[in-house]
């Protein structure tokens, strides 16, 4: 299986998964990096970079992944492209389990899953011409494109907005934005189905950032690509994504449609993260009270907090948050949240009302208006849900979270 059949060619069967169906499915994915010490290099602990995450990527969509540095988003990207070996869990691509495929086993898959890297300076070999760089996927895969490699590379160059005559130039002759275009051309060479982009625009200047974002947008439309875009910039993620996963300390805390997430974030962390983004509008400066300041820093992923990992910095944390880890459940159609006391929704653990000491300290940093507003919306939703439940005949009362399926007549997650 080390050398794939040459006959399949570049234009390999392009379908397989219809748009909207699950292309990639990740279950219980974990990656722990061991920490070794001493003469015998005994393992004394582990950095739990990714610690049990589940999600799906549907064909044709863009899934955005946001989080602060150290939350495990880049590790997640490297796991699903199988650049790293997962510690536990499974990854299915087009229904096939690829969790533990070896290098040879992965090679045919590499045509379908490609990656765009963050740093356009270190991800291109300085001693190769861009013709060689973009042509490398063809050579590695033993693919002979129609009309030859050179012609195809030149076509790719014009697709990403570079001059095809620059085929023989070296990376140092290009600017940052142009290099990122080269990286994109290389990723697209084999007509992949899934492109994982790790911070594709964060190293670029604002005006260039917009060019690359628009380019990725156009390419998705033309080629029917599926993207997983990992970024820390929430405005960029909102602009490009259909659905967004918010990560905190190796876990997904909220996974929702873009509009639901930005309009009514449910996890307190999501809310804090979004309120922290500086708004380019000097008139909004007086509205400083809208901002939620988080106390301190992200805890170490070597020994993450018990229960809900956000409880050490959350202004709503109660005893249950410290003891029980909340599960990622779908509270509203298309909005999954892992929280006992979500924002903009009915409390999931209403019996637990005593705040932790840490939460009281954290709440001091949050303005009263925000606290009042959040209590109000939660109460309103709770009332609505109760009403709805009274009307409808209760179905499957056992497993279902109290409000998982109600509140909205449309149960279909997709619109």
């Amino acid at each position, binding site marked *: 299986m080390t050398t794939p059949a040459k006959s399949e060619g570049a234009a390999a069967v392009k379908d397989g998964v219809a748009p909207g169906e699950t292309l990639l499915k990740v279950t219980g994915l974990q990656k722990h990096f061991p920490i070794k010490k001493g003469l015998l290099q005994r393992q004394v602990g582990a950095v739990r970079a990714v610690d049990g995450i589940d999600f799906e990527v549907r064909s044709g969509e863009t899934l955005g992944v946001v989080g602060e*540095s150290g939350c495990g988003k880049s590790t997640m990207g490297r796991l699903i492209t199988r650049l790293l070996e997962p510690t536990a869990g499974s990854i299915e691509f087009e229904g096939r389990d690829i969790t533990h495929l070896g290098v040879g086993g992965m090679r045919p898959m590499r045509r379908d899953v490609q990656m765009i890297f963050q740093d356009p300076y270190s991800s291109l070999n300085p001693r190769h011409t861009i013709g060689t760089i973009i042509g490398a996927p063809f050579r590695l895969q033993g693919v002979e494109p129609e009309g030859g490699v050179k012609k195809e590379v030149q076509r790719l160059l014009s697709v990403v907005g570079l001059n095809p005559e620059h085929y023989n130039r070296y990376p140092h002759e290009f600017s940052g934005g142009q290099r990122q275009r080269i990286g994109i051309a290389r990723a697209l060479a084999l007509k992949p189905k899934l492109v994982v982009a790790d911070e594709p625009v964060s190293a670029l200047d*604002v005006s260039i950032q917009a060019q690359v974002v*628009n380019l990725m947008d156009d390419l998705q439309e033309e080629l029917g690509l599926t993207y997983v875009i990992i970024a820390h910039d*929430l405005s960029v993620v909102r602009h490009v994504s259909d659905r967004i996963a918010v990560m905190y300390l190796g876990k997904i805390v909220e996974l929702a449609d873009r509009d639901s997430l930005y309009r009514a974030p449910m996890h307190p962390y999501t809310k804090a993260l979004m309120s922290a*983004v500086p708004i*380019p509008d*000097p008139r*909004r400066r007086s509205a400083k009270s809208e901002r939620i*300041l988080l106390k301190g820093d992200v805890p170490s992923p070597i020994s993450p907090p018990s229960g809900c990992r956000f409880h050490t910095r959350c202004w709503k944390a109660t005893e249950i948050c410290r003891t029980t880890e909340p599960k990622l459940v779908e509270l509203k159609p298309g909005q999954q949240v892992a929280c006992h006391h979500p924002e903009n929704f009915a409390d999931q653990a209403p019996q637990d009302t005593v705040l932790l000491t840490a939460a009281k300290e954290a709440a001091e940093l949050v303005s009263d208006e925000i606290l009042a507003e959040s209590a109000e919306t939660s109460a309103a939703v709770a009332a609505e849900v109760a009403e709805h439940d009274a009307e409808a005949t209760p179905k499957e009362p056992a497993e279902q979270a109290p409000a998982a399926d109600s509140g909205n007549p449309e149960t279909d997650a997709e619109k």
Partner: protein
Amino acid sequence: MTELSKSGAAVGEPTSTSPAPTSFLEVRDLKVHFPTDDGLVKSVDGLSFKLEKGKTLGIVGESGSGKSVTSLGIMGLHTAGQYGKRKAQISGEIWLDGTELLSADPDEVRKLRGREMSMIFQDPLSALHPYYTIGQQIVEAYRIHHDVDKKTAKRRAVEMLDRVGIPQPDKRVDNYPHEFSGGMRQRAMIAMSLVNNPELLIADEPTTALDVTVQAQILDLIRDLQKEFGSAVIIITHDLGVVAELADDILVMYGGRCVERGPAEKVFYEPRHPYTWGLLGSMPRLDREQQERLIPVKGSPPSLINIPSGCAFNPRCPYADIPKDNVTRTVRPELTEVGSQHWAACHLTPEQRERIWTEEIAPKL
């Protein structure tokens, strides 16, 4: 609080012919050029601005627009740290509280640096010395300018760490930089730069290396400290969100020159330079409804060795052909007043710019 004896009084009459300005900080026609094998890099090419005490100036621009070189120029760090044969060529005038810094004696400037003016750098890990504790570094900064014993200085360091929000400052003062997280290092840097109550604080991309939640904390801190100390602040960034948060005035740089300068509200709501329009259009915004598409600036920033003739922005400007006689490619536009305290350097007439902004650009943002 410590009393500051102003060293400005010790300096004699300025040698320059132009009169001393009334503003706290005034930069006049600053040029910083670097000779290289490939040619002369004109990083800053004729920049002028003023800044009053208690005010914040935001300098915005892309990489290579000369923002950082300007700040290092004001601090006098281009000549001070030279180790190669080639020196930066600096001309112009920098007036700080009645003292002209470029013609002043280097020893005189050294006395001001750290005391009257100090700087927060982008990357706190490389700006802090890994071999000394945080406390030692703050103590050093304090004792250079104040004749006090180590104990007093250390008490002052703990006080400053506490002020910038570091928990358990009496213990953390003996930590090394690697024991601090990114946000705490930046706080420690701020503590160090404020330990002498400087009147001018230059923050060069102070939050670029930080996460948004930490960035919010640091911006808040800078704002509070400015209120408390009443210093003048220059904040240098590429993030329009950050300047909108902090700055009273905004200066937009492109290719080593100022293309637009004015009060923050004016620059955001009535920008009068096509490059500023481009920056605003390139930015996805959280506070607006979803934009269909971003409106990028085409092309890439100019090489500082080969700055385009005429208006430096002309190869990327969609309106470069509107003014007659190819003037955008031959004549360099000067800053002209387009409103009260609001200047822009563009060949388009004010009416044309007004029309393009209100009809074409603003509706799409």
